[in-house]
């Protein structure tokens, strides 16, 4: 190599090359090591996998075979008992803390209609004679124990089969979504269209039979009565209000969003007149409508009507002791199905309304479990021995006789 002298000397080159080679080898070894490890791990996994597969195929997977003998179930019963009894007690406590006031106003006396003899007429007779007649009535009630904060006003109906098959079906969710205002589902029949073919808004029997009494609360004070501020919103499920119910596009009036529609047969006002004050609570988005459209599970039900506005002076901490009266614009007929109308004022716990049964049931079941636990303890002591005896016999067991 003649030309090599000018550059790096040959032996250095050789060494360099050797170093490179060694490095390569090291790299190679490392790589091999890693790949071997990986391979081994993979192999292991595959083996494990196939082992599982094999065990699965042969039905030899490790199994836990509990035998429900007295001794094994004992702890379960005691555990359930010990859990349920305190839970029940707690529930009972919470349920007791809920305050509730119910007022049946079905037989409410009208203040603006009188009989011939001057006695006040029953509002239900008034509207029976003339459904269009506005009948206002009042019912006094006294709050003996102040309600804690967040008092809700419900109306309750009895014997109203909102869960009847044909009733439940008689609605059109698409219409309530505000999608289409010219056609509705056949389910709404015969409350789908009027005789001229115009679509009811909203259609169907549910909407048609919407509760339309107006309830107002007044506090009787020496200075006269003051109306309690009731909040119309926040009574429906947020998900319903946000998604399930939407108004058709356009201004909420007869020529706008609902230009093709007419008001339902039994309604006195149009759907866009439900709450003229608050456009967000009007039309299909009206929370009263939304609440009504959620069919109740049982023929006796209550529905949230209003929230008491605790920003009012004097109601900051709830509903204080005092005398109140309920003023009703009595429109809703319940006679035909033998129903009753109630006004309910209630606070809530985390369980909802007043519900003593739950706590009692929990305590009862807990007690039963404890009792069963004790019984099984006896069984275990009496019968469990036999099995143990059998097991203890081995070659070393001496013969007893």
């Amino acid at each position, binding site marked *: 190599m003649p030309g090599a002298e000018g550059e790096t000397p040959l032996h250095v080159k050789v060494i360099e090359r050797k170093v490179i080679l060694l490095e390569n080898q090291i790299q190679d070894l490392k790589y091999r090591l890693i790949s071997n490890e990986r391979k081994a791990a993979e192999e292991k996994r595959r083996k494990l996998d196939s082992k599982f597969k094999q065990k699965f*195929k*042969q039905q030899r*997977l490790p*199994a*836990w*075979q509990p*035998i*429900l*003998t*007295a*001794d*094994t179930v004992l702890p379960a019963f005691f555990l359930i008992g010990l859990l*349920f009894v305190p839970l029940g007690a707690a*529930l009972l406590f919470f349920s007791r803390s809920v305050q509730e006031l119910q007022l049946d106003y079905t037989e409410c006396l009208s203040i603006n209609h009188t009989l011939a003899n001057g006695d006040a007429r029953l509002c239900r007779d008034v509207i029976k004679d003339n459904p269009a007649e506005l009948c206002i009535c009042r019912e006094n009630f006294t709050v003996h124990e102040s309600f804690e904060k967040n008092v809700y006003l*419900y109306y309750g109906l009895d014997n109203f*089969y*909102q*869960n*009847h*098959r044909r*009733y*439940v079906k*008689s609605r059109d*969710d698409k219409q309530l*979504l505000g999608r289409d205002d010219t056609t509705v589902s056949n*389910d709404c*029949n*015969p409350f789908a269209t009027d005789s001229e073919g115009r679509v009811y808004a909203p259609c*169907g029997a549910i909407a048609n039979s919407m509760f339309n009494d107006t309830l107002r609360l007044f506090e009787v004070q020496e200075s006269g009565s003051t109306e309690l501020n009731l909040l119309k919103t926040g009574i429906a*499920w947020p*998900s319903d209000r946000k*998604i*399930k119910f939407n108004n058709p596009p356009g201004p909420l009036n007869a020529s706008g969003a609902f230009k093709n529609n007419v008001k339902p047969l039994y309604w006195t006002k149009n759907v866009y007149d439900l709450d003229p004050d608050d456009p967000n609570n009007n039309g299909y988005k009206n929370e009263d409508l939304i609440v009504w459209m*959620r*069919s*109740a599970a*049982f*023929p*006796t039900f*209550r529905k*949230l009507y209003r929230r008491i506005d605790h920003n009012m002076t004097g109601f900051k901490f709830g509903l204080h002791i005092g005398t109140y009266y309920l003023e009703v614009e009595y429109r809703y007929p319940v006679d035909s*199905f*033998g129903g009753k109308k109630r006004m309910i004022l209630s606070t809530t716990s985390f*369980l*909802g*309304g007043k*519900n003593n*049964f739950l706590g009692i*049931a*929990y305590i009862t*079941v807990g007690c039963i479990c404890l009792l069963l636990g004790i019984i*099984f303890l006896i*069984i275990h002591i009496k*019968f*469990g021995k036999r*099995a143990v005896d*059998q*097991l*203890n016999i*081995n070659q070393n067991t001496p013969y007893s006789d």
Partner: protein
Amino acid sequence: MNGKSGGGGYGDDGAYAYAHSHGGIGGASGVGGERRVHARSISHGGIMISREPPMLDQGMGGTLPQGVGGMSGGGGVGGGRGHQRTFSHGQLVEGGRGHKRVMSKTDFILPAGYEEREKEREQQQKKTLSRTTSFPKGHSRQASRSESIYTIRQNKRTLLQKILFWKKVPEENRTRVVVANHVVPPHVPRNEHPNGAYPDNSICTTKYTFLSFLPKNLFEQFHRFANLYFLFIVLLNFVPAVNAFGKEVAMLPLVFVLGITAIKDAFEDRRRYLSDSRVNNATCRVYSRDEGRYVKKKWKDVRVGDIMHLSCNEIIPADLVVLNSSDEYGICFIESSNLDGESNLKQRQSVKGLAVDDKFEVKKFDYMMEIGAPSTKIYHFTGSIPLQSGERVPLTKDNLLLRDCTLRNTDYIEGIVVYAGRETKAMLNNGGTRYKRSKLEKRMNVEVIWCVVILFIMCLISATGSGLWQNYYEVNATIGLVPFIPPSNEVKSLRALQLSNNSIWVGFISFWTFVIIYQVIIPISLYVTIEVIKLMQIYHIHCDKDFKDKKSGKTIECRALNIPEELGQVEYVFTDKTGTLTENNMVFQCCSINGTDYTHTPVINKNQNSDERDTFTLNNQLQEELASIELPLIYAQPGSRQNPTTLCPPKDSPSERIMDFFFTLAACNTVVVAKYPHRDAMNASGMIVPNESANSSSINVVDTSSNTTTTSIGSSSWGPNRVLRGFLSFSRPLSPIASSPHSTPPHTPEALPRYAAPTTLTANYDQSSTSVSITLNPISQSNGLENVRICDLESQPNSSPLRPSLLNIQAAQIYNPNFTRDSRSPTPSPMDITPIYEAESPDELALVDAAYKYGFRLLRRTLHNILISLPGYGLCEYEVLHVLPFDSNRKMMSIIVCHPDTQEKILYCKGADSAILDRLNRGVDDKTKFRIFRTQQHLNSFSKKGLRVLCMAKRVLTDTEYKDWTMKHKEAENSLSNRDHKLQESYSRIEKNLNLIGATGIEDRLQDGVPETIQALRNAGIVVWVLTGDKQETAINIAYSCALFVPNMEILKLNARTKDQAERTIQFYLRQIEQEEEVRQRAQMQGTAQGNGAEASNGARMEFSAVNDNNRRQNGPSEQRGLVVDGRTLVYILDRRANLKKPFLTLAGKCSAALCCRATPLQKSLIVRSAKDDLKVLTLAVGDGANDVSMIQTADVGVGISGVEGRQAVMASDYAIARFRHLEKLLLVHGHWCYDRLSRIILYFFYKNASFVLILLCYQLYNGFSGSSMIDQMYLMVFNLLFTSIPPILVGIYDKDAPAEVLLAQPRLYVQGREGRLYKPHSFWVNILDAVYQSIVLFFFSAVLHEDSNTGMYQFGMTVTHACLIAQSLHIAIETKSWTVILVFGLVLSFIMFYGFGVLYTMTCVACLGEPSQYGELAYALRSPLHWLTIILTATLAVLPRFVVRAVICSMSPDDITQALIDNKGSQQKDFMVSWSRSTSDSSVYRPNCTEETGDEASEPFSSLVTTTTVITTTTDEAEV
């Protein structure tokens, strides 16, 4: 070739050149014969001519080679001899002569009264009979074929297809014409092609095509009643007044079920498709006109008219007519086990009479064939080939090779395809799987009907409620309308409005609504679920490694998919003996000659993996005696055979009898000798491989002679050959029956030259021979007939060393291992060396094997000759004059041969001892009598060892006697009426006055684990019956050795010879048992044990042995009796007129085991049927052979042993196992599990659906019975399908109430399934009651919690659904016996499904299904504490009772299984094993004191068998103490 050989004028074909004693074969014939290296061991010929219709006779006469003609003339001496080994059925019958097989059934067995009952079956059999006489011959145990079964099924299917699918099934009764494709000019369009109309060979067994799948599958599914019911519900939903749900939603469950089933069907169909395409793409060789040779082609491309070439062991791709075979007579053999399960070989022959020289050339084959339309009849084929001369060559089924059969014992064949693809008989007979309905399923169907009743009641209640509710408004409301309810329809008039609100009308309408709503109570998913569960159960049974038999590599095969739970409920097991309990691997073990007993020690083949048969060591004494016979022969006149009479041992001497004995073993049978594996010169792609043809193929020997390599090798091997030749010609080997492998054979000076042979020779054979004892015998060394032929030719006086240079090549090929091995064939295996015997029955094989080991080697068998190598004689060719085949009436077979030297006609006879002993020569001297007596003693001792015994006898016929008989026999054969009977008479005329030669005992070893298995089955409370055709003594012994009978068992024997006797005996036994039971009861009451007696009734031969009372009580009341019935008695019992069945079954019911000996296949199935019908028990039949098929099919569960006897039993069975011992795990573990799982799951399903529906019913109280449901319709529909179906399915597949070890260790646990303890009539109601309770708890607790609240309907529904899901999950958790990952996963999955579905459905779908929207319901519910508190409370309370009851039962009085588990668990915890280690005793034959019994044993052979019991023979008076 035969033309040349005919010059010799001997009328013998080349193949007959071995006839040493006849000599006289021309050299030319030798050359000619050389071409047929592989001479067929069966030849035909003469028979054909005399048999076939005259027209054929002419045709053949003109064309057949002279040699064959001559032979046929020679055959004429024998007249109608047909040594047709296997399958020559039709031939024989059509000709109206020959040995028509007397059916092994029934003539005397079948009671006349039975006939009506089995009429159809009988007719089928008769039909089969009239078509074929293919009943296997010899000692075959196969009795009937199943063609009729296939045929019936197929007919049904086509009928169905015709009606249902309007598919035009071609009703083609005309003949069709087939021409060879190579004569048709190429590029003829399909529609003008003469064969164009016929389908190609691709097959399609799939049910569906891609397009037809949906409609066809739906159509089939709606054949099911359940699906129709659901369809009705769906349709009901479309009635506007009635509809309860959205129309689309209501279809969901049905669609789901249909979909699952469709997926299953599609999956199965795909498997079929894959197997189809595998078959379709297999290759075969088809003659190509363009290339002028055979080319490789796929099966599916084969067309009608193609000419194919097939080699040995190839599967036949289409139905072919054989045109040419490697055999010089055009014979070939097929094995049709794929088709009909028969493993024996069937003979077929090529079409004769087409060409003048009969040399087949593909190119010249330009005939037109007229053949019949395709039919399902496997053994029926007609057709003809018109010749130019105007004659017609008929085609029969003997020319037809069927698709899916295997070519055997033939080098190659060439044939023309006549039916292809779906028109082949194999495809036309392709039947589907069988459908059986299990006991559990029947029970379930009853419950489903109850569900319908419940449904009806519920609907009625609800409808009434609905009407009443409506009525309330009718009365109270003003206009009779419910104010807030819209009228159901758009009503125009008030009248209609009023009607629509009329209470009765409303009630009526709502009835139908409720039918829809409550439909779930009839579990729609149950059927599909159970199907899935069973499928998976079967899969896991299939996967079980324990069912794999290492030896054969076979594993379990589950053919019936829908009765796994039946395995857990078996009450009676009926088992065949031979091949099922035993190996069906016969080993020669004992023989008695001259009244001397020679015993052999069996060498059991321990190597599980090898295929070798068990063998035995030779008896030294017998060897010495044989040597003493032959030594004088060899030394007296070495090499000289001119004076044959002097060679014979003295007449009637012991040594002659020894010779005769072995000769009978070797000759008197139907064994076929296949010499070596077959080779074909053509390779797979149709090319002729020259190298191979040089080796051993017969194609081009002359060509190879010019091959230099060959010649050089030939010359180089001249030396050894010469040595060999000299050796063979002029000396006899000293001791062909060399001693046992360990002792060195005696050498004589003559033997020494052998060691001069090249070492390759010796080394080669040392390595490869199976038995060392035959190593040094030159004949066995060569063993190819080529070599024998060489020897013969060499020993011809006028054979010059110049001539047969070719022979040397042959020799070289044989002796030079390098040369012999070609690339294709593996190194010579032992099979290359010893002749391959092919026999129908293993006992024949064992006998021939035994004779072979003693030097009596059957080397070749043809129709008229037997070539046998005899020690001391060398090769002898005997002329076979007659074969009187075996039938089960005579129980014997005979062969009449003509002794080559003395020309004596001798009848050799082999048969059952009873048959032979009855026909012995009466007038004999005392010495002979003593000999017979000794032999009888030996026979008894043999049978006591459980051996199958056979007797050999001989009779020398005088010429006149023989001639007389021949004449009469011929008459009998030719008689048209009553031929069977006449033949029988004819047989009995000649088979008399026999001289006893000796007897043999063949051991049929028990399979491994048989006693343990039977013991386990009996411990499980299963009654085991063994049904066998064996004789009583043998059967009883086997019964003892396989633990069917235990020593302290009473054996009740029923051997009646008249009906009255049978009745008396049965009544006697019944009385006896009654008394015994009374006595025992009394004794138990008195606390004293009382002896018991028995009485021997007059007439009936019976032994009533009472066992000690103490013994008995330990075993329980019915444990200690065993019943033995023989076939003759069964005739009377099964005769309907005798009314004996009932008492017999009562008697049998008192016995824990029964043994039927001498039973025919029909009797077997009759017994099974009577047990099934009269005792109302669940029966299982196990068998391995064709004779068990009817039994297997009759039983509720048929199990086939996939053993050595072909697949017919397997084909008929529901489960096929490899060994009998697998039955134990199959029943005790898998059966138990399957029953346990399924019954629990079915009950769970009823509960599940009922509880869900009842919740809906409860809700009706709150909604005016309007039919509304608080659960959303989607949830309602998917709840059962998605949320709660996975855990039960998984439990149904994987749950185990006890581990396999425990179940195997304690067979008594099987009682749970046997008595159906889990699924009793009341269990359904218990579960329904539980459902009622649970639904009440679930509903009303929630209702109380939600009443008078602002809870929405669906919100409430969500709570109830969730609670219901939890309750049902807890319920299944309680029902789950063992928790595995899978089951936990299943439970978790069902919850994931619930929440997942909820999220999907209630979060995304606002108004999508046209139903009240569920938006946000789930989220709201899950956020509500009340929801959670409610579901926890209600679900806990709902399952509490079940949990408590379960726990109480488990701890107070646990059932057997729980107890076993507790024990097992305890033992594991305490770390010692409870003694469930199973006895691992060897399955050696049990011999109850059978050492050496002599004396009066012969007359009363079995009286002392039950040795451990005390035989008390008392009078009735004494017994009544």
